[in-house]
């Protein structure tokens, strides 16, 4: 049952005026009112084409910007659900638009909690969460995500994208293989801006007492996915298309991304300790569409700067790395840092050992946890440099085979993580 106390009176009024729906789409953003309006319009069109007979609502969870103050997307007239957007164009039913406004920017966790509560109150059978950027450019994604949850009774629907071979390398080299090896399900994109879920999973997550936790506040989608896996909900993947580049071209800061994703993953290992320790091997999940697709247009990357930042990091952060890693692993990384650009190779074995030692050190809190994740940044750059060097001239198939080998290496070394995890804290001088 939804905890209504944190929902605003305005939102509750809007939800009550809508009644019950079959499908709910949450647009989760801190974007401007115009972007949100375009996104809601695109989503509405997609729903009209694909779910003609279903009762549908779109909820925009908006952080609020200066532009929003005079936006008509807020129900400022006190008549929620009756604004100019609460209308259907071609569908047999009205598509409702709801806006949840916050004073200041809400965290993604709070935004998701609002969507889950709304979904629960509206008794939606399936719900999709999308970002305004992708829902504007590819509205059909919404329908593709909703279909398995609504028609095929899947509880968690993860997206699959096609990308440039050198984009999404954190997911390819760390997040996917590690979550696959530990949680035992081959879901490629647990950290994404789009996903869908059933009312069953939504209610389950809503009742969990984790909403105050920082990892859930910053990246709630991975927690939801891992909760689905560990509680044996039915999971699947659906191919959506090419992942669009970030709107401003630059994307988020690498350090911030690692803090949010890797920090989140390490936290998930703690909260689901029992579950991942018991699991052996990994199983594929049903997939709609191709499982992977990569493009290989020429791409400009400043490789020299990348390796320089890795080498500087290993040298300058030695005292910190010493407290996180075993002597052998640190020596291995230092010997990699000593290699020149042409012979540079960061082996999969060393990479996995290093990551497992980071995870165990996070668990034992050998240093401040946020600092620990930040110390991983230069090492990640080294691994990515090695990956780019190794696969710059190879085909997508060869690259995929290498990724599969990396996944198997993560699975092979899982007992090492368990051993380190259970061991006491080793205080080093």
């Amino acid at each position: 049952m939804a905890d209504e106390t944190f929902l605003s009176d305005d939102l509750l009024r809007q939800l009550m005026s809508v009644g019950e729906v079959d499908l709910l789409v949450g647009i989760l953003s801190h974007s401007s009112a115009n972007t949100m309006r375009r996104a809601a319009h695109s989503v509405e069109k997609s729903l009209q084409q694909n779910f003609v007979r279903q009762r549908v609502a779109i909820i925009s969870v908006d952080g609020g910007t200066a532009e929003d103050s005079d936006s008509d997307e807020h129900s400022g007239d006190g008549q929620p659900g009756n604004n100019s957007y609460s209308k259907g164009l071609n569908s047999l039913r009205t598509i409702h638009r709801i806006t949840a406004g916050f004073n200041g920017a809400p965290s993604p966790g709070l935004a998701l909690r609002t969507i889950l509560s709304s979904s629960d109150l509206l008794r939606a059978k399936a719900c999709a969460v999308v970002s305004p950027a992708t829902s504007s450019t590819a509205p059909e994604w919404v329908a593709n995500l909703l279909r398995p949850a609504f028609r095929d009774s899947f509880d968690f629907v993860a997206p699959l994208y096609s990308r440039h071979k050198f984009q999404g390398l954190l997911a390819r080299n760390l997040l996917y293989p590690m979550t696959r090896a530990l949680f035992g399900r081959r879901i490629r994109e647990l950290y994404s801006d789009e996903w869908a879920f059933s009312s069953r999973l939504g209610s389950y997550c809503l009742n969990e007492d984790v909403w105050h936790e920082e990892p859930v506040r910053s990246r709630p989608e991975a927690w939801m996915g891992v909760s689905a896996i560990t509680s044996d909900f039915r999971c699947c993947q659906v191919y959506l298309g090419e992942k669009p580049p970030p709107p401003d071209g630059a994307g988020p800061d690498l350090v911030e991304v690692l803090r949010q994703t890797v920090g989140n993953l390490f936290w998930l290992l703690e909260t689901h300790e029992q579950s991942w320790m018991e699991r052996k091997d990994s199983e594929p999940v049903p997939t709609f569409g191709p499982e992977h697709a990569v493009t290989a247009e020429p791409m400009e990357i400043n490789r020299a700067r990348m390796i320089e930042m890795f080498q500087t990091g290993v040298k300058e952060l030695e005292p910190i790395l010493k407290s996180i890693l075993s002597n052998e692993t640190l020596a291995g990384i230092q010997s990699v840092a000593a290699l020149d650009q042409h012979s540079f190779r960061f082996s999969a074995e060393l990479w996995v050992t290093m990551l497992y030692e980071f995870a165990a050190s996070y668990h034992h809190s050998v240093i401040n946890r946020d600092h620990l994740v930040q110390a991983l940044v230069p090492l990640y750059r080294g691994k990515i440099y090695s990956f780019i060097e190794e696969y710059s001239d190879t085909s997508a198939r060869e690259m995929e085979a290498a990724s599969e080998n990396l996944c198997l290496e993560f699975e092979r070394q899982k007992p090492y993580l368990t051993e380190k995890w259970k061991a006491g804290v080793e205080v080093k001088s």
Partner: protein
Amino acid sequence: MRVTIVQGLEQAYYNLVHMIAEFLPRLVVMVVIILVGLVAAYLLGHLVRAVLRLTKLDRVSEDAGASRVLRMADLPSMTELLSRSIFWITWVGFILIGVSVLGVAGLQEQISRLFRFLPEVFIAMLILFLGLVLANFLSRAALLASVNAGIRSPKIWSWSIRFVIWILAISMALEELGLARQTVLAAFSIVFGASMLGLAIAFGLGGQDLARRALERYLGNSTKEKYKEPQPL
């Protein structure tokens, strides 16, 4: 004459016996207080050790870098150090109370002064410890931030932060103890002012280009393209 000498000796003997009779019970009381203090200090030390182990203070101390400093000074772990300190402080307190029971003139005043001074010593120690913890935490944060941002010579920033916080903590601790207040204030002003002036001169003379580039970067006029990385997600 003879009688007078004998009377004098008798008087001295009586005085001595009287003094011993007066002193012995006090001595016994002192010994009892010291022994009770020993037991109390032992129990309190154990209790503190158990509580600190339960709260995992050593891990916090390790994280803050305080344990490393202790090891460098050949001192035991933070838990052990604090529990031993509690033991000795308690026992010394009981010893001083016991000694004051003897009623030795002038000693009581010194003992009460020492007791009045103890809270300030504790506060000064606490300031130093917090300063150490804060200095290590912030200097590590600065080191990580500058390494990850690709700033050259990241240790300079890290050490500068550590140095400034140490100086601040030491001067605050000395101020708390009331030791040479004027000297400490002057020394702090000189060291801090000199450091800032040195940095200003070094940056102004040696880093004109760097300053220009930094300003250009902050004002958005940089001609050099920002370092771009492949999208991680």
